[in-house]
């Protein structure tokens, strides 16, 4: 016998689809089938069931081999590491729930640590930009119900957010967009002819690294000012046409991704894209939204925001919160050799940071809390496997448009495994003792 659970939330990307159906065994121990999810989400649910899964903490031995240790030993190692460090970095948080993040922040405050999430290598520049000039945005349902102009700028939902176009942005028939895709014009800006670009009404194949100039040219066009013949590899006439297409819609949206945040100009690309959005509001209604990657990187930013006032790259070392990417951001902290201990949770800097930063992680005391084996666990001194959030434990998460959705538990974790929140709570309580606060 099996039972089917509905309204299950997918813990993969920032699209945070909440319409999944999952078939589980009657005893709630095995996950049998997943419906409605994309191929990546399906894999995430199914992989949690693999037999070769690591279910107990492992401590790296001098010869490089792993030794299984108890959770209590892992708690002790982690608490000691944090208590003894002058400037520990507590990085990740984007693939766990807000409850775990909250306990982590208590630990960071006690330890005098730097706290950062994966926005550091994803939409950090977006945060810098919105701090400079704001962010006119909306929820994804607004796109579905109203939008007739869709721009994908430096993002490739066909690959990175597989259900985005079908659930929210291109195909759905909304309240004022009854004809679905026929109600919308789609513009893609990308240096490659991506699988998303292939679906577009207009594709501007921008010269890589010149998005800032192209965005500026859009605004020059809106002001009917002089333009050079070609900008960023695109003829001026084509830019003016595209600008008019945006102007002539009733409700437009710019979605953007790492194509602009990780390219030269970074925050400035987003800054000018936001300025363009604001500019277009002089002619019609326009919004802009980052395509957030990890399913709860947004939640980490929100919780950091209300608890400390800054959404990422927060430095608590002096007993108060400070923020300045370039100084307090993970990549710079590691590249500059500013931190002396690395605590990684719910993310994989080993795979996604430049190797020069990973080399510093390998040099200093380090703990990696992650259900998977990863390059990060591979270079860390202690690996603590935990339950999969969104599969084996619920909790709150925030979608790319900041909409909070309470995730659901669908199966039990393997016997004796702790969740992020449980492990962190033990570390917090032990650290309290070490700091003489309990």
């Amino acid at each position, binding site marked *: 016998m099996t039972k089917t659970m509905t309204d299950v939330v997918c813990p993969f990307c920032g699209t945070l689809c909440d319409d999944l159906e999952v078939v589980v065994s009657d005893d709630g121990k095995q996950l049998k089938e997943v419906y409605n999810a994309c191929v990546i989400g399906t894999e995430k649910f199914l992989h949690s069931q693999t037999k070769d899964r690591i279910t107990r903490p492992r401590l790296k031995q001098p010869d490089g081999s792993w030794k299984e240790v108890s959770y209590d030993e892992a708690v002790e190692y982690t608490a000691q590491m944090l208590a003894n460090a002058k400037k520990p970095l507590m990085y990740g948080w984007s693939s766990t729930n807000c409850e775990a993040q909250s306990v982590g922040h208590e630990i960071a405050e006690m330890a005098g640590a730097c706290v950062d999430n994966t926005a550091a290598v994803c939409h950090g520049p977006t945060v810098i930009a919105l701090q400079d000039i704001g962010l006119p945005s909306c929820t994804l349902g607004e796109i579905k119900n109203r939008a007739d102009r869709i721009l994908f700028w430096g993002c490739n939902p066909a690959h990175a957010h597989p259900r985005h176009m079908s659930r929210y942005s291109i195909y759905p028939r909304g309240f004022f967009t009854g004809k679905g895709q026929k109600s919308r014009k789609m513009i893609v800006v990308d240096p490659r002819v991506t699988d998303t670009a292939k679906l577009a009404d207009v594709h501007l194949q921008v010269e890589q690294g010149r998005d800032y100039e192209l965005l500026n040219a859009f605004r020059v066009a809106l002001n009917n000012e002089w333009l050079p013949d070609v900008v960023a590899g695109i003829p001026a006439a084509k830019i003016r046409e595209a600008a008019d297409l945006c102007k002539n819609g009733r409700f437009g949206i710019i979605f953007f991704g790492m194509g602009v945040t990780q390219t030269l100009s970074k925050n400035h690309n987003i800054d000018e894209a936001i300025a363009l959005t604001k500019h277009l509001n002089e002619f019609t209604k326009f919004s802009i939204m980052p395509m957030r990657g990890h399913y709860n990187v947004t939640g980490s930013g929100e919780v950091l925001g209300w*608890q400390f006032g800054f959404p990422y790259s927060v430095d608590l070392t002096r007993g108060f919160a400070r923020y300045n990417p370039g100084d307090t951001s993970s990549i710079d902290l590691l590249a500059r050799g500013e931190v002396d201990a690395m605590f990684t949770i719910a993310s994989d800097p080993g795979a996604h940071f430049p190797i020069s930063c990973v080399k510093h992680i390998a040099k200093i005391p380090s703990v990696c809390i992650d259900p998977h084996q990863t390059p990060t666990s591979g270079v860390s001194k202690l690996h603590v496997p935990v339950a999969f959030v969104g599969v084996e434990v619920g909790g709150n998460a925030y979608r790319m448009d900041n*909409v909070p959705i309470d995730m659901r538990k669908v199966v039990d974790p393997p016997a004796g495994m702790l969740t992020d929140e449980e492990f962190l709570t033990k570390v917090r309580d032990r650290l309290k003792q070490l700091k003489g606060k309990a």
Partner: protein
Amino acid sequence: MSEYIIKNGHVFDPTQGIKGDKADIAIKDGKIIKDSEVSSKAKVIDAKGKTVMAGAIEIHAHIAGPKVNLGRIYRPEDKLFTYQSTTANTRMAGGFSIPTTFKTGYEYAKMGYTTAMEAAMPPLFSRHVHEEMRDTPIIDEGAYPVFGNNWFVMEYLKNKEIENTAAYCAWLLRATKGFAIKLVNPGGTEAWGWGLNCLSVDDPVPYFDITPAEIIKGLIEANEYLGLPHSIHIHPNNLGNPGNYTTTLDTLKLSAGYKAKNKFGREQVMHLTHTQFHSYGGDTWANFESKAKEIMDFVNKAKNVTIDTGNVTLDETTTMTADGPFEHHLTELNHLKWANVDVELETAAGIVPYIYSPSISVCGIQWAIGLELALMAKDPMRCFITTDHPNAGPFTRYPRVIKWLMSNKARQDQIKAFKNSDKVVSATNIAGMDRELSLYDIAQMTRAGPAKSLGIPSMFGGLKPGMDADVVVYDFNPDKPSAPDQIEAAFSRAAHVFKSGIEVVTNGEVVNNGHKRTLWVNAKTKENPQVMRDVQEKFIKYYSVTQANYEALGHHIVPNPYAIEVDATQ
């Protein structure tokens, strides 16, 4: 739970008509009891030469939720050099105009505020609002979901379906654990979905073919049909524009003929909020002037209306409102960073930093209007002090506003300090107003009044035996002459604050984080299959989350709820 007896203080309690007489206040098990019933074990607090009041109640502030947090996140400069370090009883706390949740709780408590209402909860984001309230220590909080641009409401009211509107409102209050029915720029915010607005109560809402006036009257009727503790709480159309006082009067007039129906002792059917922003004359910023008198002439007569002031505090702050089109208008004026969030089927929000500069005459006139409203109020039980935090200024400035209201000298000094004081004086009545509010007036405007308007006078706002033991002792002697700044100092840092019988603040410092509760209204209505069908259909077709996930609001998000029960099944 411990017992206390607060001895020999000058007590100000409108619920018992006590106007500064010496009296003892006894506390046991979280409640106020007769001082005769207190045991010898009770801890004695000497309040000799001090002022004793009930805990103050914030009736309208933006302190938790998506737009507040976006404000925090997008203003790192608001935190710069403001931070307070971790202490034995407090987390680290920072921010000026949009403080962190921890600082929000601490600062309210230190001023003697023990209950606060978040003024605009987008229903789709209720989980977020509740998560932040959970992390706001000490004070009890509730939140008002916004209804004035809600598709269900507009569709039902277009057909004058009051019962269905009421059933939907009750469902949404349950789903979001909300406290009251809030309207923000009714119809205008839906129009903003297309970049448009409704600037009068008769501008039709695009597509929905209904007017703001119809929405307002319909929601008054639904609110009284349900008999909710609070009345509708309205931010009217046309906020912040010269000449908007006529729109405000048109809005107020819609209350005519309605009588409050509820079991909570509430008498008003409409609460009009941050009235300062809606009392403007002139037709340009050049001939901008105060119409506080015209507004208060109406309010003083209309017994079924309450208002709050929205006092400008002359600070650099962060404006944030569900009035999306207004914030766009504002960023076009001051060119500062603009954030906007349109929320599917429900509402919107905008954020723009703003500097109320004493050297700009418009800001001085706004400052005067807010004070005039309170000084012209004939019934302090129907006019409450707010700064519409953080819109007209941060709530941490309440002690300064109280100083201005209690001291004509403080007002005259400020008028002299304006760069264009002559302009401020000629455009307002403030210079000639010598009324100085008494501590009893203040107790009505910040305690008993808001409690009655919110329909929670049996719990809060007074010191009667049986009420919650929310008690404040201010180091201020009403018998002694005092300089204006002593008023501000005393109200900034209370000598003692008790929340539900627990001493949470001593000598202006947090000593205990209390047992914070979330107040919400559980209105039971008759089964209404049609409304449930409509809800189901809208979720399937137009929402971007499923109904089951929209309704999910687990214990981990609202750990300590306090439901006010309403039975509207009859």
